[in-house]
Every structure is written in structure tokens, then in C-alpha cells.
């Protein structure tokens, strides 16, 4: 902390470049794949103490950040990684995911009470869910894997682990039998994503990984090389893919096995900047930016993950009230018509010439070919059609740029690619 504080004071007046990474107090938490990725050109950023591969330098390119408000030197690297995710197969390291094991006789009842989606599913299933507060605000945006009748694994972003643990512990009842354990460091997570992901996995695993055997929203244990992994059929980039949870000691071996098997399919290493640009195209929300404890789950467009018919849970009444009263605002996805300008977040949203709101997140849609942003637009008493019939612009450094708006994801609105 002493080292970091010497930097943070100076950051007040430093250039606040997009993607700027801290320079002090680094290297504290490293993935089991850290050295392997570094040897392959990874450039690391830091989140919650974790070193994370954010992009990969090409051979001969300087493997470090050089900042600007315009296209940064690694813009093309991200574009290539993004392309691999959309058209081929890519592997990125999400070992920094927070992992909370919830186990015990009452684990299901406890999770049903704190989660908005139905958690009482069969073992082997995955559930995307929010944890809500009494106002319907989103306290956490997580995935829950049912490992057995009595054990669940909650997966959350690296930056929210402590927050979520605290939220869970505060809602646990003394008479309930359920243990909450942070198992983050026990497993590495390798995300194998893209239309060729299945072919790559099949090439290094004897298990049946077909859509029938391992459909979207399920997990299965699979062998990879001589190691074992739990393959979760989910995606934050909107493609066919697997999050592979591997015991930390076997992570390097499994990584090498996938890398070797993937060569034939052009497997590319990707970083988290590419993951972020893909999720923006798919309009997947990011906790802390697009969804927070002050954003109502229905206005965030996540009503599909809320099951009010399952019985009582924290935030249920607020959801019912909002259904009654209607949405005061909606989270809208924007794409600039001009391919050149860049969005980062915080840019004002102009509706029919009037400033109404601002972007909660922004980035470049390398597949869609222009900058993409998400932001809430006030729409009390309006229908979705009325909202979308407006003329939208995004203001960047004082200049207004025309934008198209959508309530459905601009990329693959039917989500067929992810489920394929």
C-alpha cells in the first residue's frame, strides 16, 4: 500500500488515459499460466491485485502499454484477437474469477433466497443470476454452477469477490447449514471461445463435447491431455465456447495440451481487452459499469434472469412493483455511424438534440466496425418503440456523433451462435 499510494496521489493530475494500468505494487497475484502467457507476448494489467493478460504483442512489437486517447498501438492486436473469437478459436485466461463454494444441507434454500434466478436446477446445470437488494438494485452479477445436490460454485468478477462474500455472509441465517468458502486460488480458468472451440476441445479430449452431450448452460467433467477440467458451457463474448476450470496444479499442462491441439484450427491467444470489446457487441452487462446496486434489474434489461414465480427472494417485491409502475429508464446499446471516433464511457447521450444521460461503458466493436456503448436512457411512460424512434447522438470531447440505438444485442440478437 505504501508503494501504491506514492503513485495514486500523482494519478490525480496524470493523464487519465483509457486502459492506463498502475505501475506500483504489481505482481502480487498471478495466474498459474502467468509465465507461459508472458513468454507468448502477454501484456498484463492489474485488477484487484491480479496480473491479467489484457492483450498479446506480436513478434517484434514492444510488449508494453503506450497510451493515447486515439487508437493506441495495441488497437490492431485487440482487433486480431477479437476476430479470432468471432471467426475461429481463441483462448484467454480468466483465472482471476472469484470462486465461492457454497455447500451444505441448506445451500439450495439459501441461494434461492439471495439469487433472483431459479437455483434449484439439476446438478450439472449453470444459472446466470443477479443478487438483488430490497430496491431491486443489482448487488452482484454472477454464474452459479450446481456441482451436486448440496454443493454450488458461484463465479464472480475478480473485483467483486470480497463484496459478494460479504453480501452472502450477511444474508446467511444462523440456523442454516451452508458453508461459504472462497476457493478462487484452487482453479485456473481457461476460456476457449469461438466457432472452432468445439473442434479444438474435441482434438485434445476423449470426451463427447457435442451440443447434445454438453449443451449451453451445462457443465461436464472432461479430460484434457492427461489432466481433468470442468467444462462450463457459458460465454461472455457471445460465441460457442467453454470456460475450463482446471485444478491450479494441472493448469499449465492443460494449457499446453489445448495449445498443441488448437494449432490446426488456428487457435489464438487473446486478452481481456478483446473479451471486453466482444461483450460490448453482444451488449452483455458489466458489473460496476452498466449494472450496480443502484440499477434496477428490470431497467438493466435482465428481467429474463428474474423468476418471481419461484417464491420469496431478496428484491422480489421491488421487481413486482417495477413491473406494475413501468420502467423509468432502459439500458440501450449504441453504435456510432462513423467508424473513427472512440468511446470509453462517460460520454453524454443526446436524444433528439437534448442531453439526457451518459454511457456507462464503451469500447470498439471490431466486428461491427465502429465504437459501441451502453447507457441508460430515461423513458418514463414510453414504449420501447417510442424510445427507439428517437434520433440519438453521442458527444465526444464536445462533438456530437450520430449513433444507432438498439434494445436487442447488435451482435447475434437471437443468441444462436452461443448455443450452437
Amino acid at each position: 500500500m505504501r508503494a501504491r499510494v506514492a503513485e495514486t496521489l500523482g494519478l490525480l493530475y496524470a493523464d487519465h488515459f483509457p486502459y492506463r494500468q498502475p505501475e506500483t505494487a504489481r505482481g502480487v497475484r498471478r495466474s498459474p499460466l502467468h509465465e507461459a502467457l508472458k513468454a507468448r507476448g502477454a501484456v498484463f494489467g492489474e485488477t484487484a491485485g491480479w496480473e491479467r493478460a489484457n492483450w498479446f504483442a506480436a513478434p517484434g512489437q514492444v510488449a508494453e502499454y503506450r497510451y493515447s486517447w486515439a487508437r493506441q498501438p495495441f488497437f490492431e492486436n485487440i482487433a486480431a484477437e477479437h476476430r479470432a473469437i468471432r471467426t475461429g478459436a481463441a483462448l484467454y485466461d480468466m483465472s482471476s474469477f472469484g470462486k465461492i463454494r457454497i455447500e451444505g444441507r441448506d445451500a439450495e434454500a439459501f441461494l434461492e433466497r439471495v439469487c433472483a434466478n431459479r437455483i434449484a436446477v439439476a446438478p450439472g446445470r449453470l444459472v446466470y443470476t443477479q443478487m438483488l437488494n430490497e430496491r431491486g438494485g443489482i448487488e452482484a452479477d454472477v454464474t452459479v454452477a450446481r456441482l451436486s445436490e448440496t454443493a454450488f460454485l458461484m463465479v464472480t468478477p475478480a473485483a467483486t469477490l470480497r463484496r459478494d462474500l460479504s453480501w452472502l455472509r450477511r444474508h446467511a441465517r444462523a440456523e442454516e447449514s451452508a458453508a461459504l468458502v472462497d476457493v478462487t486460488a484452487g482453479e485456473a480458468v481457461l476460456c476457449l471461445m469461438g466457432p472452432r472451440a468445439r473442434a479444438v476441445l474435441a482434438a485434445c479430449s476423449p470426451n463427447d463435447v457435442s451440443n447434445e452431450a454438453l449443451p449451453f448452460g451445462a457443465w461436464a467433467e472432461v479430460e484434457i491431455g492427461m489432466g481433468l477440467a470442468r467444462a462450463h458451457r457459458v460465454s461472455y463474448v457471445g460465441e460457442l465456447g467453454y470456460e475450463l476450470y482446471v485444478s491450479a496444479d494441472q493448469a499449465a499442462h492443460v494449457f499446453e495440451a489445448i495449445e498443441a491441439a488448437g494449432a490446426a484450427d488456428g487457435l489464438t491467444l487473446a486478452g481481456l481487452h478483446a473479451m471486453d470489446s466482444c461483450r460490448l457487441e453482444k451488449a452483455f452487462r458489466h458489473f460496476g459499469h452498466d449494472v450496480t446496486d443502484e440499477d434496477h434489474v428490470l431497467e438493466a434489461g435482465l428481467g429474463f434472469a428474474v423468476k418471481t414465480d419461484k417464491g420469496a427472494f431478496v428484491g422480489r417485491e421491488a421487481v413486482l412493483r417495477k413491473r406494475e409502475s413501468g420502467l423509468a429508464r432502459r439500458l440501450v446499446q449504441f453504435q456510432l455511424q462513423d467508424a473513427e471516433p472512440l468511446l470509453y464511457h462517460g460520454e453524454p447521450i443526446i436524444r433528439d438534440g437534448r442531453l439526457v444521460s451518459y454511457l456507462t461503458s464503451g469500447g470498439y466493436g471490431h466486428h461491427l466496425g465502429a465504437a459501441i456503448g451502453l447507457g441508460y436512457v430515461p423513458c418514463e411512460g414510453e414504449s420501447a418503440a417510442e424510445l427507439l424512434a428517437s434520433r440519438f447522438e453521442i458527444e465526444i470531447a464536445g462533438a456530437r456523433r450520430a449513433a444507432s440505438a438498439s434494445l436487442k444485442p447488435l451482435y447475434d440478437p437471437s443468441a444462436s451462435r452461443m448455443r450452437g
Partner: protein
Amino acid sequence: MADASFANAAAIPSHARAVVIGGGVSGCSVAYHLAKQGWREVVLLERKRLTSGTTWHAAGLIGQLRASQNLTRLAKYSAELYAGLEAETGVATGLRRCGSITLALTAERREEILRQASLARAFEVEAEPIDHAALKRLYPLLNLDGVTGAVHLPGDGQGDPANIALAMAKGARMHGARVIEGVLVDDVLIEKGRAAGVRWRRGSGESLEIGEIRADAVVNCAGMWARELAARSGVAVPLHACEHFYIVTEAMPDLPRLPVLRAPDECVYFKEDAGKMLVGAFEPKAKPWGADGIPETFEFDQLPEDFDHFEPILEAAIGRMPALAEAGITPSSTGRRASRRMIGLILARRRNCQAIGWRRATIRSASPRRAGRAWRSPHGWRRARRRSIFGMWTFAAQRAFRGTEPICARASPRR
């Protein structure tokens, strides 16, 4: 829970609804807002005298634009609050809506401040890019060399941080809170994993008194002591003091009233106050202070000079505002340095002279800009903490200012 001991103004009560630890701007603000919201039996304990930690020589810049909408709302609320405090309490807060200007000296910085101006408008803060002519009009003393852009925030202001805190302390008392100086909190009492009160100490030797206050809520507003205090209860509060470098000139002849000026590319800010200039630095590599503990006697203390650290920034400041070269430097308020010197002269003679560079230990979150937030929006505060500029891993600090909750519940000790 009525407590007879609370009625006795001379004694430290044995029970309170809330104990606020620390009499800086944060603690005074929390006590003021709790009392004003109708909380009975609020006690504020200050180890020495009010404001004697870092509040008393904060710069007092009251900016409105913050990184998030909630923080911006709170900053705007702070400015409004300070404007009304004098009428409410009779204590002058020195608040002046003088506006502020941010300068860009590179093309990249220009892009940044123009983007910030857009963001400001989204957060309903008035912010306009201005050209060189307008800049010269608003700030005649400025050297425009190398200026690539400027943004003017007319609603920004400045104030007197110590008096703002004292005004809130007085307001807290007026609403029934007890504000007690010279009482040190040694520990937070913990029962069943929750804060249950504090253990305090007053005086020393023969006159030593010790005691406890049982409380429903305990609020840690200990500023640069907050981390150490919380650590005793197993809670991580990622706050750390850094040295701050600034000078105050003597009265400069014909100095007009000026807005606050920031030149981040030169790591410097300028504040005109009563005909004098305050010039302060936010240097790229700061000096952490007090990592091995803060002296027990610390009270309105200043730190030894480190002119080598400050010199390059001061030099740039004189380049940006040449009139400073002719200005004398005001001695520090404790009068340690009383000789009058010219800034330019000191720069030339620095090897032989250790005269200037009064520094202070400062904690950003105790600055008056952040006052008044804790009650107004606990959620906003949590966001602030998440992005706390002093935070390395700030998550464990999320509960610190939730007001109605004790901060020392052991729900999330950092691993």
C-alpha cells in the same frame, strides 16, 4: 435508549447511539448530518483538537466534477451545504464561488479535458472550453505559452477547510450531538462480530482516565489514523497519508480575485485567497508518510522540508505565473519560519537554504470536497471507496461509511 449520563455535559457518556471517531472534516460532517437527521445521543471523540490532523491545512478547493454521478452529486451538495453553514451556525466558511480552470499543455490532455467537459455536462455541472482570450481575461497573470486548451467550470469554488469543519461541529452541537476534544479512542469494542462501542482514554500519568462508551454504531473517521484503528479490529481500511507540498505567498500587490487554476501537466494548482497565492503540487511520485506509525503527539504538526522534491514543480509554477518570482513567502502558521524570502531567490540559492516547502500530511478523503457525503448517500460513498485513489484493494473498506452499520463487523476481513 435514554441514558442519564448523556445529559451531564461535563462527563463522557457511557452510552451513545453513535460514536464518531475523529474530529476532522469527515467526522464533523458525519456528526452534523446524523444529529440533523434526528439521531439522539451522537458523540464525536477527537484525540486532540478539532481539525488538528490533516483538515486544518487542506487546500480547500471545492470542485464539483467527480468520476461518477453520485460523487458529483455529493460534491455539489457539499458546496451548497457550505454556502448555507454560516447562516446556520454563525461560523464563516470562506466559501467563494470563484470558478476553476483546467489547463491543457499537450494535445492528449486537451482531448482529456474536452471529454471531461462533456462528462461534466452529463452530470449537470456547468463546464465550457475557453479560448486564449477568455483565459487571459479570467486569469490575467497567466503565461499562455504551450497552452493547447482550457476548460472553465464557473460553479467551482474554494473555502476554508478548518472553518468548514468547525462550522459543522458547531451545527452538530446545535442539533444535540456531543463533540468532545482531548479523548483518544484506543479500541472498538466488538461483540458477536459487531461493533458495540469504544474504549477511550483521556490525559496521562496521574490524571489518566479510561472508560467505555457503549454504542449502536461506531463510525471510523480517523483520517490518517483510520487504517491503524481499523486494523486493531481486523478490518482493512486502505487509507494512507502522503506528504503534500505547497507554499503560501505573502500579500501580492494588485493581485486580482482569481478562480482556482489547475495545470495538471505541470503537476500544480493555484489558489488565490485574500490577496495571497497558494501554490500546491500533485507530483507524479508522491511521498507516503507515517507508514511506521504517527507520533502520539501529532497535533497541527508540519513536516520537515524536502526542497529537492518540490523544486521542479515550483519552478514550473513560476514559469506559468511569473509574478510569483517576486512574491514573498508567508511563514507557516506555527511560525517556524519567519524570514521573508523571495521565491525566485530561494530557487537560486537552494543549496544553501532550507527555507521553504511547508508540507502537510494529507488524506484526500478527509478533504472538504468530500465532506457531507457519508450520510447523504452511503452507496455513493461506497463507490467512492471502490475507486479510492489510495486504495490498493479497497473492497474491505466498503462498509466503512454506511452510517447505520458498525464498521467493525468482522464479516469481511481481508485475507
